[in-house]
Protein backbone atom coordinates (compact mmCIF):
# COMPACT_ATOMS: atom_id res chain seq x y z
CA UNK A 1 0.00 0.00 0.00
CA UNK A 2 2.19 2.82 -1.17
CA UNK A 3 1.28 6.43 -1.66
CA UNK A 4 0.73 6.22 -5.41
CA UNK A 5 -1.75 3.43 -5.08
CA UNK A 6 -3.75 5.50 -2.58
CA UNK A 7 -3.82 8.41 -4.99
CA UNK A 8 -4.93 6.17 -7.81
CA UNK A 9 -7.78 4.79 -5.75
CA UNK A 10 -8.91 8.30 -4.88
CA UNK A 11 -8.85 9.18 -8.56
CA UNK A 12 -11.02 6.26 -9.60
CA UNK A 13 -13.47 7.00 -6.81
CA UNK A 14 -13.89 10.53 -8.10
CA UNK A 15 -14.53 9.27 -11.62
CA UNK A 16 -17.06 6.84 -10.18
CA UNK A 17 -19.04 9.59 -8.49
CA UNK A 18 -18.96 11.66 -11.64
CA UNK A 19 -20.41 8.90 -13.78
CA UNK A 20 -23.10 8.22 -11.19
CA UNK A 21 -24.06 11.90 -11.36
CA UNK A 22 -24.15 11.72 -15.15
CA UNK A 23 -26.23 8.57 -14.96
CA UNK A 24 -28.72 10.27 -12.69
CA UNK A 25 -29.13 12.97 -15.30
CA UNK A 26 -27.58 15.65 -13.08
CA UNK A 27 -24.89 16.53 -15.57
CA UNK A 28 -26.98 15.89 -18.62
CA UNK A 29 -29.03 18.66 -20.23
CA UNK A 30 -31.55 16.09 -21.52
CA UNK A 31 -34.70 15.77 -19.44
CA UNK A 32 -35.65 12.72 -21.51
CA UNK A 33 -33.00 10.74 -19.68
CA UNK A 34 -35.27 10.70 -16.66
CA UNK A 35 -37.24 7.92 -18.33
CA UNK A 36 -34.20 5.67 -18.18
CA UNK A 37 -34.86 3.19 -15.34
CA UNK A 38 -31.60 3.91 -13.55
CA UNK A 39 -32.39 2.09 -10.31
CA UNK A 40 -33.20 -1.08 -12.24
CA UNK A 41 -29.91 -0.93 -14.12
CA UNK A 42 -28.00 -0.33 -10.87
CA UNK A 43 -29.64 -3.35 -9.20
CA UNK A 44 -27.00 -5.88 -8.17
CA UNK A 45 -29.22 -8.95 -8.24
CA UNK A 46 -31.82 -10.23 -10.66
CA UNK A 47 -34.52 -9.75 -7.99
CA UNK A 48 -33.50 -6.13 -7.31
CA UNK A 49 -33.44 -5.25 -11.00
CA UNK A 50 -36.86 -6.80 -11.66
CA UNK A 51 -38.39 -5.18 -8.62
CA UNK A 52 -37.22 -1.74 -9.73
CA UNK A 53 -38.20 -2.27 -13.33
CA UNK A 54 -41.54 -4.05 -13.13
CA UNK A 55 -42.54 -3.71 -9.52
CA UNK A 56 -42.32 -7.41 -8.71
CA UNK A 57 -39.19 -9.41 -7.91
CA UNK A 58 -40.54 -12.73 -9.11
CA UNK A 59 -42.07 -13.99 -12.33
CA UNK A 60 -44.20 -16.86 -13.47
CA UNK A 61 -42.18 -19.37 -15.49
CA UNK A 62 -43.73 -19.68 -18.92
CA UNK A 63 -43.12 -21.92 -21.93
CA UNK A 64 -44.59 -19.23 -24.16
CA UNK A 65 -41.30 -17.33 -24.04
CA UNK A 66 -38.40 -18.52 -26.11
CA UNK A 67 -34.75 -17.53 -25.65
CA UNK A 68 -32.39 -18.23 -28.49
CA UNK A 69 -28.82 -18.04 -27.27
CA UNK A 70 -25.72 -20.21 -27.74
CA UNK A 71 -25.11 -23.05 -25.23
CA UNK A 72 -21.46 -22.07 -25.13
CA UNK A 73 -20.32 -18.53 -25.87
CA UNK A 74 -16.61 -18.29 -26.64
CA UNK A 75 -16.56 -14.53 -26.22
CA UNK A 76 -18.64 -13.13 -23.38
CA UNK A 77 -18.41 -9.62 -24.84
CA UNK A 78 -20.72 -10.59 -27.69
CA UNK A 79 -23.49 -13.07 -26.92
CA UNK A 80 -26.29 -13.05 -29.48
CA UNK A 81 -29.68 -13.33 -27.77
CA UNK A 82 -33.12 -13.48 -29.35
CA UNK A 83 -36.22 -13.34 -27.21
CA UNK A 84 -39.63 -14.09 -28.66
CA UNK A 85 -42.99 -14.94 -27.19
CA UNK A 86 -46.37 -16.22 -28.25
CA UNK A 87 -48.07 -14.31 -25.42
CA UNK A 88 -50.61 -11.64 -26.33
CA UNK A 89 -50.50 -7.95 -25.32
CA UNK A 90 -46.82 -7.90 -24.47
CA UNK A 91 -45.89 -4.39 -23.38
CA UNK A 92 -42.41 -4.86 -21.98
CA UNK A 93 -39.47 -7.18 -22.45
CA UNK A 94 -36.36 -7.29 -20.26
CA UNK A 95 -33.17 -9.23 -20.90
CA UNK A 96 -30.96 -10.07 -17.91
CA UNK A 97 -27.73 -11.95 -17.37
CA UNK A 98 -27.64 -13.47 -13.87
CA UNK A 99 -23.84 -13.44 -13.49
CA UNK A 100 -23.25 -9.80 -14.50
CA UNK A 101 -22.36 -7.20 -11.81
CA UNK A 102 -25.52 -5.38 -12.93
CA UNK A 103 -27.82 -8.12 -14.23
CA UNK A 104 -30.22 -5.98 -16.26
CA UNK A 105 -28.72 -5.54 -19.73
CA UNK A 106 -31.67 -3.96 -21.46
CA UNK A 107 -35.39 -3.29 -21.28
CA UNK A 108 -37.81 -2.70 -24.12
CA UNK A 109 -41.16 -0.94 -24.31
CA UNK A 110 -43.22 -2.19 -27.20
CA UNK A 111 -45.55 0.11 -29.10
CA UNK A 112 -48.81 -0.74 -30.85
CA UNK A 113 -48.39 -3.44 -33.50
CA UNK A 114 -44.87 -4.36 -32.40
CA UNK A 115 -44.29 -8.10 -32.14
CA UNK A 116 -42.89 -9.64 -28.94
CA UNK A 117 -39.58 -10.24 -30.64
CA UNK A 118 -36.20 -8.72 -29.76
CA UNK A 119 -32.83 -9.75 -31.10
CA UNK A 120 -29.62 -8.19 -29.82
CA UNK A 121 -26.14 -8.94 -28.51
CA UNK A 122 -25.32 -8.75 -24.80
CA UNK A 123 -22.21 -8.95 -22.63
CA UNK A 124 -21.83 -11.74 -20.08
CA UNK A 125 -19.25 -11.56 -17.31
CA UNK A 126 -19.12 -15.30 -16.81
CA UNK A 127 -21.18 -18.46 -17.16
CA UNK A 128 -24.73 -17.85 -16.03
CA UNK A 129 -28.36 -17.70 -16.99
CA UNK A 130 -29.82 -15.43 -19.61
CA UNK A 131 -33.22 -14.45 -18.27
CA UNK A 132 -36.02 -13.05 -20.37
CA UNK A 133 -38.91 -11.41 -18.58
CA UNK A 134 -42.04 -10.34 -20.39
CA UNK A 135 -44.93 -8.24 -19.16
CA UNK A 136 -48.20 -9.35 -20.71
CA UNK A 137 -51.65 -8.21 -19.66
CA UNK A 138 -50.26 -6.77 -16.41
CA UNK A 139 -48.65 -10.08 -15.40
CA UNK A 140 -44.98 -10.95 -15.40
CA UNK A 141 -43.72 -14.07 -17.13
CA UNK A 142 -40.18 -15.25 -17.57
CA UNK A 143 -37.84 -17.99 -18.57
CA UNK A 144 -34.10 -18.63 -18.50
CA UNK A 145 -31.37 -20.40 -20.38
CA UNK A 146 -27.88 -21.21 -19.24
CA UNK A 147 -24.98 -19.97 -21.35
CA UNK A 148 -21.43 -21.13 -20.69
CA UNK A 149 -18.92 -18.38 -21.22
CA UNK A 150 -15.28 -19.14 -22.03
CA UNK A 151 -13.93 -15.57 -21.92
CA UNK A 152 -15.77 -12.98 -19.82
CA UNK A 153 -17.00 -9.78 -21.35
CA UNK A 154 -17.21 -7.42 -18.39
CA UNK A 155 -13.97 -5.61 -17.68
CA UNK A 156 -10.63 -7.32 -17.31
Amino acid at each position, binding site marked *: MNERRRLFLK*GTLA*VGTLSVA*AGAGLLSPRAV*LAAWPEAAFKGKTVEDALKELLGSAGYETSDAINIKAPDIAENGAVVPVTVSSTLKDVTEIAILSSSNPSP*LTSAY*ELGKGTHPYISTRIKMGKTGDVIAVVKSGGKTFGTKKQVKVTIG*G*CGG
Partner: protein
Amino acid sequence: MAKSTIKIRAKEKGGVVTVKMLISHPMETGTRKDKKTGKLIPAHYITEVDAEANGEKKLTAYWSGGISKNPYLSFKYDGKKGDKLKISWQDNQGQSDSLETTVK
Protein backbone atom coordinates in the same frame (compact mmCIF):
# COMPACT_ATOMS: atom_id res chain seq x y z
CA MET B 1 -22.80 15.56 -43.46
CA ALA B 2 -20.81 13.14 -41.44
CA LYS B 3 -21.55 9.49 -41.95
CA SER B 4 -24.37 8.31 -39.71
CA THR B 5 -23.59 5.99 -36.83
CA ILE B 6 -26.77 4.05 -37.62
CA LYS B 7 -27.32 1.43 -40.28
CA ILE B 8 -30.88 0.25 -40.81
CA ARG B 9 -32.37 -2.49 -42.92
CA ALA B 10 -36.16 -2.67 -42.91
CA LYS B 11 -38.10 -5.12 -45.05
CA GLU B 12 -41.79 -5.93 -45.28
CA LYS B 13 -43.03 -9.48 -45.85
CA GLY B 14 -46.61 -10.62 -45.39
CA GLY B 15 -47.63 -7.48 -43.50
CA VAL B 16 -44.76 -7.72 -41.03
CA VAL B 17 -41.82 -5.35 -41.15
CA THR B 18 -38.53 -6.73 -39.86
CA VAL B 19 -36.16 -3.99 -38.77
CA LYS B 20 -32.47 -4.68 -38.25
CA MET B 21 -30.03 -2.03 -37.13
CA LEU B 22 -26.40 -1.61 -36.25
CA ILE B 23 -25.08 1.37 -34.32
CA SER B 24 -21.41 2.27 -34.03
CA HIS B 25 -20.78 2.94 -30.37
CA PRO B 26 -18.06 1.92 -27.85
CA MET B 27 -20.57 0.86 -25.15
CA GLU B 28 -18.05 1.20 -22.30
CA THR B 29 -19.32 -0.13 -18.98
CA GLY B 30 -17.10 2.08 -16.86
CA THR B 31 -15.54 -0.92 -15.12
CA ARG B 32 -12.92 -1.69 -17.74
CA LYS B 33 -9.34 -0.52 -17.28
CA ASP B 34 -7.09 0.95 -19.90
CA LYS B 35 -4.33 -1.64 -20.31
CA LYS B 36 -1.61 1.00 -20.82
CA THR B 37 -2.39 3.50 -18.06
CA GLY B 38 -4.26 1.23 -15.63
CA LYS B 39 -6.96 3.87 -15.28
CA LEU B 40 -10.65 3.15 -15.59
CA ILE B 41 -12.22 3.98 -18.91
CA PRO B 42 -15.25 6.20 -18.18
CA ALA B 43 -18.69 4.73 -18.80
CA HIS B 44 -19.97 5.57 -22.25
CA TYR B 45 -23.01 3.69 -23.43
CA ILE B 46 -26.31 4.20 -25.18
CA THR B 47 -29.17 4.60 -22.72
CA GLU B 48 -32.09 4.84 -25.10
CA VAL B 49 -33.00 3.85 -28.64
CA ASP B 50 -36.31 4.97 -30.11
CA ALA B 51 -38.00 3.59 -33.19
CA GLU B 52 -40.94 5.33 -34.84
CA ALA B 53 -42.90 4.33 -37.94
CA ASN B 54 -44.89 7.13 -39.59
CA GLY B 55 -44.52 9.14 -36.37
CA GLU B 56 -45.96 6.36 -34.18
CA LYS B 57 -43.78 4.88 -31.46
CA LYS B 58 -42.97 1.24 -32.10
CA LEU B 59 -40.15 0.48 -29.72
CA THR B 60 -38.19 2.14 -26.94
CA ALA B 61 -35.08 0.29 -25.87
CA TYR B 62 -33.38 1.13 -22.59
CA TRP B 63 -29.79 -0.03 -22.68
CA SER B 64 -26.84 -0.18 -20.32
CA GLY B 65 -23.21 -1.21 -20.48
CA GLY B 66 -24.51 -4.77 -20.63
CA ILE B 67 -25.09 -4.47 -24.36
CA SER B 68 -22.19 -5.35 -26.65
CA LYS B 69 -19.98 -2.83 -28.43
CA ASN B 70 -21.39 -1.63 -31.77
CA PRO B 71 -24.86 -2.81 -30.80
CA TYR B 72 -27.18 -4.81 -32.99
CA LEU B 73 -30.95 -4.70 -32.53
CA SER B 74 -33.75 -6.32 -34.44
CA PHE B 75 -37.51 -6.14 -33.95
CA LYS B 76 -40.73 -6.73 -35.91
CA TYR B 77 -43.98 -4.82 -36.25
CA ASP B 78 -47.16 -4.91 -38.32
CA GLY B 79 -46.55 -2.51 -41.16
CA LYS B 80 -46.25 -1.99 -44.90
CA LYS B 81 -43.85 -1.01 -47.63
CA GLY B 82 -43.17 2.72 -47.76
CA ASP B 83 -43.47 3.26 -43.98
CA LYS B 84 -41.26 6.10 -42.82
CA LEU B 85 -39.04 4.64 -40.16
CA LYS B 86 -37.05 6.84 -37.78
CA ILE B 87 -34.41 5.48 -35.44
CA SER B 88 -32.70 7.66 -32.84
CA TRP B 89 -30.39 7.03 -29.92
CA GLN B 90 -28.84 8.96 -27.07
CA ASP B 91 -26.06 8.02 -24.67
CA ASN B 92 -25.03 8.77 -21.10
CA GLN B 93 -22.61 11.48 -22.27
CA GLY B 94 -25.31 13.48 -24.03
CA GLN B 95 -24.43 12.42 -27.56
CA SER B 96 -27.15 11.37 -29.96
CA ASP B 97 -27.89 10.53 -33.56
CA SER B 98 -30.89 9.68 -35.69
CA LEU B 99 -31.63 8.34 -39.14
CA GLU B 100 -34.73 8.04 -41.27
CA THR B 101 -35.39 5.37 -43.84
CA THR B 102 -38.21 3.95 -45.90
CA VAL B 103 -39.42 0.38 -45.46
CA LYS B 104 -38.74 -1.73 -48.55
